[in-house]
């Protein structure tokens, strides 16, 4: 649509002044992917893990009350919605705001688990995510300072955005999208509420894909 190899066909354009929200084949694919996982988070029941008693053949299935996981589920859905916003936004600053929101909701998903190690990992991720917002907002602000606009539609294909701004955006998304590493570190996938943790991986993957599209476009 901008005569660039990454975009694909133009599917939908919605104008809000100079900010144009658009769907190309690429962003529409990301959007549908995120929407699918929101539906999964809405309909999924919490996973019931099994515990094996060491040295015997006994296996327990944990009873998990869905009421306890309401907060995690809400945060997972909110995280999905923020991801939808991030992949479909046509404005650099909106993209950074949605990415910061993904960071906040990610911590919300993890903080529902009442385990010291998990909370410690979430705390460390929170510090990384907070420092990453400096790069996110800094990148968008530097693009605004040099080009005078934040609209991806206007900047597309012109190569006006300085390299420093692009580097800042990627660094910021790296910080916010760091969550899966901390999940692996704290083994949260084995804690109660496993289906909702999926949303962290999905959002991280999608914002990385979207920021690659943005820095190749502007």
């Amino acid at each position: 649509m901008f005569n660039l190899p990454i975009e694909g066909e133009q599917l939908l354009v919605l104008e809000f002044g100079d900010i144009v929200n658009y769907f190309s084949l690429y962003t529409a694919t990301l959007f549908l992917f995120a929407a699918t996982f929101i539906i999964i988070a809405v309909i999924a029941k919490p996973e019931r893990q099994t515990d094996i008693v060491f040295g015997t053949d006994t296996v327990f299935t944990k009873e998990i009350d869905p009421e306890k996981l309401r907060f995690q589920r809400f945060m997972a859905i909110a995280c999905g919605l923020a991801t939808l916003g991030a992949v479909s936004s046509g404005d650099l600053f909106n993209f950074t705001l949605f990415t910061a929101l993904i960071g906040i909701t990610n911590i919300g998903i993890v903080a529902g688990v009442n385990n010291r190690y998990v909370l410690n990992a979430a705390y460390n991720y929170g510090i990384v995510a907070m420092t990453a917002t400096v790069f996110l907002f800094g990148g968008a602000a530097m693009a605004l300072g040099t080009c005078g606009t934040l609209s991806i539609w206007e900047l597309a294909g012109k190569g006006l955005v300085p390299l420093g701004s692009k580097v800042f955006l990627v660094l910021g998304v790296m910080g916010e999208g760091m969550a899966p590493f901390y999940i692996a570190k704290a083994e949260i996938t084995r804690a109660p509420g496993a289906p909702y943790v999926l949303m962290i991986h999905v959002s991280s993957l999608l914002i990385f894909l979207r920021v690659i599209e943005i820095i190749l476009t502007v």
Partner: protein
Amino acid sequence: MDFYQFGLLITLICVLISFFALFREKDDIHKILIVDLIETVGLVIVCLVATDLAEALVLPGLVVGLSELLMLTELYIRKENLPLPVVKPIKIEVMRMAPPIIATVLVIYGIILSGFTGGAVAGLGLVFFFLSKGYEERFVLLETLSGYAWAIWILGFFIFMIIPQAWLLAVMLSGGAILLKVTTKMALIGTMREGQDV
């Protein structure tokens, strides 16, 4: 090198210094403070652009920073199992006397103003009085009302953008919603006695 680039250079040096401080700090609660410092320096990068648009970007940046700070501190309290502090309600004469006085002033000022604005101000005064002198504090009701008002306000903005012909509807929707929103915010001031002798 123009003024903007010079300022940017100085700010980036500040960012570097604060990052260095973060790397050296080992204590968790001090890390929160330094991260707040880093956020503030990050906002300076946005402020440097110094246009109307940049001014509009500072506010969401600040809100995101504050919410992340709140979230981190909550997480720290949960992580360290810190007991929540017990706060005694403040027994000061102002909280007993202020609501009727403020409400009366607002109603009189509303009648003088008259029209839409006057109605808003007078209604605000009345609701403020009833909510602060009422029999019980219904935070859930206030929060729900505030949430709906927010949604209607945004809806008004969307109508402006998508169907500009229906501007009157949009103005009325956002005007009414912002009145509700401000009223509920004001009413919260009247509920500062923590549910005691209301």
